[in-house]
């Protein structure tokens, strides 16, 4: 009776169920195979804490940089009437579809010691970027910022631009209007975009390992540690994966309850 009511035809129901199983079973497998007995000792092993801390710091730094650069960029894409806007949008979203390894190579060619900008940096200031912690942040920002830009641009387009007209007639210049009206209006979009961006940065692998390498303590983030551990100590890999999964699920819950669900009407009041 329930099936009849929800009205899902069998040709759709079966593949849909298979799809759910396909997505959920690996995660279940991770839980089943986890070495629950030695979990604590694995977690407190010297490398794990370092990698986790580095991951969190770098992902947060990448998200902050993305906010500072990405929100203004989203505003330009959504509000300005500049001619090359559609081209600009395409360029900005390229990292979304680009294989991260390619992004890492590209960053290397520009910021590496022999790179277009990197060589000048090294020759004039003695600064080397690749294979340092800043390189991790740069690689993560490169890959994750488009998520924030797209999310905030969507929020800006959905926001009623007439509020900005109202603000202008009330004596607010464009900057004041942006700070006092536009930003608060799209705050949920910015929050959702930040979380997406942060989660993407946290899981970044390809660009990071290409551009920043895999040095414990300076550039070895959690995903790199997982990959490395899988080759010599699968149990450690499972534990590290569990930690990443917990952080991701926590993020998802935060996202849904705080900003996406809006079912808790009490928040607004």
């Amino acid at each position, binding site marked *: 009776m329930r099936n009849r009511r929800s009205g899902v035809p069998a040709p759709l129901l079966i593949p849909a169920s298979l799809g759910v199983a396909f997505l959920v079973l690996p995660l279940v497998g991770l839980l089943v195979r986890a070495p629950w007995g030695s979990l604590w000792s694995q977690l407190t092993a010297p490398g794990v804490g370092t990698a986790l801390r580095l991951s969190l710091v770098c992902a947060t730094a990448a998200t902050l940089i993305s906010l500072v650069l990405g929100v203004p960029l989203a505003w330009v894409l959504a509000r300005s009437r500049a001619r090359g806007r559609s081209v600009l949008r395409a360029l900005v979203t390229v990292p979304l579809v680009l294989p991260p390894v390619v992004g890492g190579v590209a960053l290397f060619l520009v910021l590496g010691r022999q790179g277009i900008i990197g060589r000048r940096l090294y020759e004039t200031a003695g600064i080397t970027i690749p294979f340092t912690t800043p390189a991790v942040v740069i690689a993560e920002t490169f890959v994750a910022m488009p998520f924030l830009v797209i999310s905030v641009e969507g929020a800006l387009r959905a926001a009623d631009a*007439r*509020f900005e*007209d109202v603000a202008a*007639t009330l*004596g607010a210049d464009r900057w004041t209007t942006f700070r*006092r009206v536009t930003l608060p209006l799209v705050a949920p979009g910015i929050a959702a975009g930040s979380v997406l961006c942060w989660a993407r940065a946290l899981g970044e692998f390809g660009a990071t390992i290409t551009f920043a390498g895999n040095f414990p303590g300076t550039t070895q983030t959690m995903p790199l540690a997982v990959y490395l551990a899988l080759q010599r100590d699968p149990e450690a890999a499972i534990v590290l994966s569990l930690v990443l999964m917990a952080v991701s699920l926590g993020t998802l819950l935060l996202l849904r309850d705080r900003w996406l669900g809006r079912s808790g009407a009490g928040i607004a009041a």
Partner: protein
Amino acid sequence: MSLDAAVRVRRGTLDLDVGLEIADGEVLAVLGPNGAGKSTLLRVVAGLLRPDAGRVAVDGAVWDDPAGGVHLPPHERALGMVFQDALLFPHLSVLDNVAFGLRTRGVRRPAARQAAGRWLARVGLEGLGDRRPDELSGGQAQRAALARAQVGDPALLLLDEPLSALDARTRLTVRAELRRHLAEFAGSTVLVTHDPVDAMALADRVVVVEDGGVVQAGTPQEVSRAPRTDYVARLVGLSLLPGTGAGTSVHLDGGGEVAVAEETSGPVFAAVRPESVALYLSRPDGSPRNVWPARLVGATPHGATVRCELAGAVPLVADVTATAFAELGLVPGAEVWATVKASEVAVYAR
């Protein structure tokens, strides 16, 4: 605080070319159908849209002069604007919404909130300052929007269809309050509306805009008594018959002839009120000089009467009581005779 504006804007199919002059304390209604360019005109005066040509000056200070390269940005113009939807900022309390215009002009928060509170009291929203905008009714929100627009003591108040989003009953009360506010307001007001009742009730002077141009201007009484276009005539419920006067009759441009009480000559309008038209099934005997055959093309209930649209050499609108409508057995397509006394026909120069 007078406004002197000549505005020329081309946007797509719209070719707006309108001049406005408003004295101190005067309320000018810009009346016109949708798409006539009324809101575009208001956006130009507000500085939200640059005109292609023309000039906007307030108290002699030039706000817009494209030829001279002058464009004062909207936030530097001493004006307040109320939009069709109240558009209260959803992330601010009602009080902070009203205080917004003072905060942007550098007033400190406590002083701004105090002034905003006084304005809320003036529009009858005392004690509702802590509410969120979505906790207000439509009428309350529009009152708050009015307070927000006026809090900075603007020289110019722009009202863009301020009542049209309200339900009929709320519109009555808010209109009455708006009338009181506008009477107290020292600056000039431009009211854009497509509702003749708003224009008649609130304005000192009416400008009728159609297809981007001014077709008639005058006091509300002048405009409603002697409309110059079909649009205005329909709004005020008159049948407008353009023709040429010759003695006590008018030869209509569309054929037909109308007898009038006064002597006229040259191009004139003859205007007939729907309630002065009588309908008969057969040609009536007796005195009326104006008897025309006509065909009923439409009938809509209008209160206790039925408004009948008549086609023929003399196109008219007639109001008959619902009883008479039933007794005559009128149906669309019916052939009828319409009569009007010559003394009931208003006639004025085109």
